[in-house]
């Protein structure tokens, strides 16, 4: 699946997007955040406070308990500050 990162999540990880293949057992958005946080210092920094991270699956807002099975594009970003 394709992961997209925005704003300071993108800056901390140092990438705008990447393709990943999460291991079995990573079933939800929350699981995915936990797994990503273990991939290195930059990911640990980006996801140090998972409660404030927002996520979207295939361009729709989701909560941490949303299943990622079948997702093509998962995005992680801070709370939005548009308008």
């Amino acid at each position: 699946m394709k992961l997209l990162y925005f704003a300071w999540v993108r800056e901390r990880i140092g990438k705008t997007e990447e393709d990943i293949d999460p291991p079995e057992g990573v079933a939800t958005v929350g699981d995915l955040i936990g797994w990503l946080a273990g991939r290195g210092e930059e990911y640990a920094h980006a996801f140090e406070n998972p409660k404030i991270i927002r996520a979207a699956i295939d361009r729709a807002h989701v909560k941490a308990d949303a299943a990622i099975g079948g997702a093509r594009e998962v995005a992680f970003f801070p709370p939005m500050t548009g308008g």
Partner: protein
Amino acid sequence: MAATISLQAGPFDAGAEVTKLTRGRTDIGAVVTFTGICRGDENGAPIAALTLEHYPVMAEGEIARHVEEAQRRWSLLGTTIIHRYGRIAPGEDIVLVVTASSHRHDAFASAEFLMDYLKTRAPFWKHIEQAGGGTWVAAKSTDDAAADRWAQQGGTS
């Protein structure tokens, strides 16, 4: 009812957008426009510019979804939303919401609803350029509260 939604790097002309909505129409009795403008300071410190980052396809989808919600909740005869991205200098426009209706109440209420949701649900992020470096604008709990009150009034968003 047709809505115009544009995400663009360049500036817009709020007056021209109102004219586009109302020209030749005699059913519209009220137009509300909201323009969000880049301030020259943030928390008392001068800023050089804002840079707006966005998630393009999702931003269009979220805005369209909330326009549809506004059209269900109020009697609207026209809606225009323009949101800029990229670097924006102090004094320049950032966002435009125009709502047209037969009477003022629906135009006022829907414009405020749309702005409250743009602030909290549309995937845009403001980065501030200041002397000494850059920072990301922090989300405000008052903006979340402003959006939440519409849900309490019986919305689906």
